[in-house]
């Protein structure tokens, strides 16, 4: 048993739903109790989809247990086929149905449904959402895709995007146009946007673009082996990665590398004088392995940040991320324990978190700005505007997104200069926060933590007064640094001198 307050990933059948919901003409019959239908709202509310996910739940109840849950499954499967007439079906069990061992796959096999029925084995008590998506897509591809003649023009499949993915919708558009500039057409995008009929003709592509290793690597490897299609290893998020991706595609296909970077703004924005204030900002990265790995390169090489820590919640990416972290001189945190992530962030005291919606909570609690770089997603991760992460426009979007939570350069200087101005006091708050002060949320009284330092130093009045002169957005850090410094030096009273000694100690 493992105690969890927030989770980064759902159960594996939610991963299967992400694949099914992204597709057309596929239906998922899920042996599950009624409560599991909550998963529908992930798609209709968070992603604002205008259709229900193509999932029929068997909705068994306590009174069905031990009597006819198996029949319930069969009836539901037949009804779903009759009502939705899909081109193919996937069948599986959720965590509770797994315990009652009805074997949906086996039952479906005996039923003569006139379309392909693909059984899913998704061990709920061992694996999680990304595994579920990866495995489901793999099983669909394995069941339907066949070797076939290649298209006349050089073409590829874009694989990995799913429903509820972090900016997958816009990444598809960006990559399609990037590849088209090189004279490469897109054969099939899958699972998102594809139908079972499309999956059948995936073999016609010359190679695969593996957009998100989390959700399609197993299928990519299978297609490499069985259909002779190489796949790309570089995920084109960030300027450098996009350029490398173009080279990689050129090597695979033999076409001339070409990248239309006329709209690329990140490098100049990064060099422009306003960005000086980004210099060496200490950032902590956390999310899925792919997004964290690409974000690390952008943070260090394209934004001039200092990466003080990185990690991912999906164990499948532990190995590459550990190796990468070593290159950055930090240790990777591989954990799906939200509280552990919070502890690490608290200890590192970064100036910005590049994380998930979960880290946004942590950031709020600790007063650290956070930009979201990865799933798990939230309704605000599906903006109406075009907002990819990949390619040229993705790099531009990332620059804006990451800079936004930090106070802008010139504004920061002005705040210093005018800090005694009556409208620039603490209560006024910065203008980009909507004009109202950051008030202490009543909700934010966390439980008394047991790890409060027992040897906390006392602030002398003069020091406390001096501290108030420091701009409010760095005051919290100054306070923490001074206290840490004081405890380091065994100082019991904090004077103005201690404050400035600490400032000198931590100066970079």
């Amino acid at each position, binding site marked *: 048993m493992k105690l969890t307050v927030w989770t980064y990933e759902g159960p594996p059948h939610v991963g299967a739903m992400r694949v099914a919901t992204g597709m057309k003409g596929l239906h998922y019959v899920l042996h599950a109790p009624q409560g599991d239908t909550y998963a529908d709202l992930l798609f209709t509310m968070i992603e604002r989809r205008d259709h229900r996910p193509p999932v029929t739940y068997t909705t068994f109840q306590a009174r069905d247990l031990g009597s006819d849950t198996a029949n319930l499954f069969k009836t539901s499967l037949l*009804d779903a086929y009759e009502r939705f007439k899909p081109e193919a079906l996937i069948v599986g069990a959720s965590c509770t149905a797994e315990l009652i061992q009805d074997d949906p796959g086996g039952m479906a096999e005996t039923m003569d449904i006139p379309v392909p029925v693909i059984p899913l084995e998704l061990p709920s008590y061992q694996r999680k959402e990304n595994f579920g998506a990866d495995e489901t897509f793999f099983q669909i591809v394995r069941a339907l895709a066949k070797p076939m003649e290649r298209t006349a023009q050089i073409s590829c499949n874009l694989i990995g995007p799913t429903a509820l993915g972090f900016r997958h919708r816009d990444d598809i558009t960006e990559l399609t146009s990037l590849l088209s500039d090189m004279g490469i057409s897109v054969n099939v995008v899958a699972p998102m946007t594809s139908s079972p009929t499309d999956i059948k003709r995936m073999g016609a592509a010359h190679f695969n673009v593996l957009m998100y290793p989390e959700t399609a690597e197993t299928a990519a490897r299978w297609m490499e082996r069985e259909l002779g299609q190489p796949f790309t290893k570089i995920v084109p998020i960030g300027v450098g990665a996009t350029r490398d991706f173009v080279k990689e595609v050129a090597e695979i296909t033999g076409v001339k590398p070409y990248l239309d970077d006329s709209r690329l703004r990140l490098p100049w924005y990064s060099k422009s004088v306003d960005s000086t204030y980004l210099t060496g900002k200490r950032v902590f990265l956390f999310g899925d392995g792919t997004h964290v790995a690409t974000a690390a390169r952008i943070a260090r090489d394209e934004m001039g940040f200092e990466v003080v820590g990185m990690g991912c919640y999906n164990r499948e990416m532990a190995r590459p991320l550990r190796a990468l972290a070593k290159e950055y001189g930090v240790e990777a945190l591989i954990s799906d324990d939200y509280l552990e992530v919070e502890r690490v962030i608290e200890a590192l005291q970064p100036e910005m978190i590049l994380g998930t919606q979960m880290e946004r909570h942590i950031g709020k609690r600790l007063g650290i700005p956070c930009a979201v770089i990865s799933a798990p997603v939230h309704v605000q991760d599906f903006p109406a505007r075009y907002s990819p992460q990949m390619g040229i426009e993705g790099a531009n979007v990332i620059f804006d997104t990451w800079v936004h939570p930090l106070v802008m350069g010139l504004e920061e200087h002005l705040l210093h200069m005018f800090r005694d101005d009556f409208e620039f006091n603490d209560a006024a708050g910065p203008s980009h926060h909507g004009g109202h002060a950051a008030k202490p949320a009543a909700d934010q009284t966390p*439980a008394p933590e047991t790890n409060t330092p027992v040897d906390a130093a006392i602030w002398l009045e003069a020091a406390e007064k001096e501290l108030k002169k420091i701009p409010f957005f760095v005051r919290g850090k100054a306070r923490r640094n001074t206290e840490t410094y004081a405890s380091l030096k065994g100082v019991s009273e904090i004077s103005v001198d201690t404050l400035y000694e600490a400032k000198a100690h931590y100066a970079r």
Partner: protein
Amino acid sequence: MTELPRLPVSGGCRDEPILKQRGQREVFCGLTGIIWLHRKMQDAFFLVIGSRTCAHLLQSAAGVMIFAEPRFGTAILEETDLAGLADAQAELDKVVDQLLARRTDIKQLFLVGSCPSEVIKLDLSRAAERMTERYAPSVRVLNFSGSGIETTFTQGEDACLASMVPVLPKTDTRQLMLVGALPDVVEEQAVSLLSEMGISPIKVLPAPRSDIDLGVGDNTVFALTQPFLGDTHAALERRGARHLPAPFPFGEEGTTAWLRAIADEFEVDAETFERVTAAPRARARKAIAQASEALNGKSIFFFPDSQLEIPLARFLTRECGMTAIEVGAPFIHKSIVGPDLDMLAQGPTLSEGQDVDLQLDRCRAARPDLTVCGLGLANPLEADGLATKWAIELVFTPVHFFEQAGDLAGLFSRPVRRADLLKLEAAE
């Protein structure tokens, strides 16, 4: 000012046939009750013993909205727990030790059963007893089931409150108990109205803290503030308490009838009743009249969700001028919603339980002006051109009693007004 009460409709709906169809249900499970209960009971922690799905559900249902560390969590069952049950009990002890060490402010711990823990028959009542002994007197450990194979949505609150009743101390005091978790502002209004009538003492279940003096006994009468509290109702009667049946306090009419049932029991004279209720009643009528302009003459269709559907249909048809096409509820406890059914005019289809595909067919055929449904169905129905109201807001938002009657009508009129407001045809 005295207004004539609206006369009961001949017969009402109490004896109307109820449509029951078995199929896929589109409802939350009872675990979701934890979302509002953990804010209501300030020294309680809810520990779900379940799977990753349960943890994911709670997080999705809470909408990643809670800034403070939530006072709920999941002990996720793993392969090893499924292998042997003796292990699972020991594992649970470990998790609870860990939790209580971390959260020393916890005085009540609820072990909440889920689908997987029910299926493997993990004995949580035994665990709760064992832990109560171990942590007494600082922490009381109780258990209930919020599993989706046993409960839907609001039944979780029912199961939770019902689990608290047997351990309430016995009292012989003649007292009124209000039963149901309400937003604080609403609860205070109810207590203040009743206090002004001279009724006392008034107790509330659930109390905000476990150290509040709350007992039950033969001289306790209780009024339900929510219609989904069937098990709690039964548990209180087993302790000798007596229920005061009444329509539920939604809208001016429901609130008045609900208060009157209590006032009659405590022999409050008509003059006092009038003095206390006249002003807020007038305010409520005015507010409803304003907020329900957009609703008058419009039709409404309820998908089953919270069990609030019947009292709400009564409010919307009688006070806001709507026509009900179908009123679906997950369960219909006639002993509890009977007074509301009596007042609901015949005509709508009453349905209990659900086959969501068939119900969607009926809804699309009827094309109601407003559809009340769960979050999973709302956007798909909007995409079909049907205005919808998320049922979940009716549970989270203050909607009870006089001062909220206008807001309640407003919750329903907003989507209708919005549909009229938008001129998107040209843009599409």
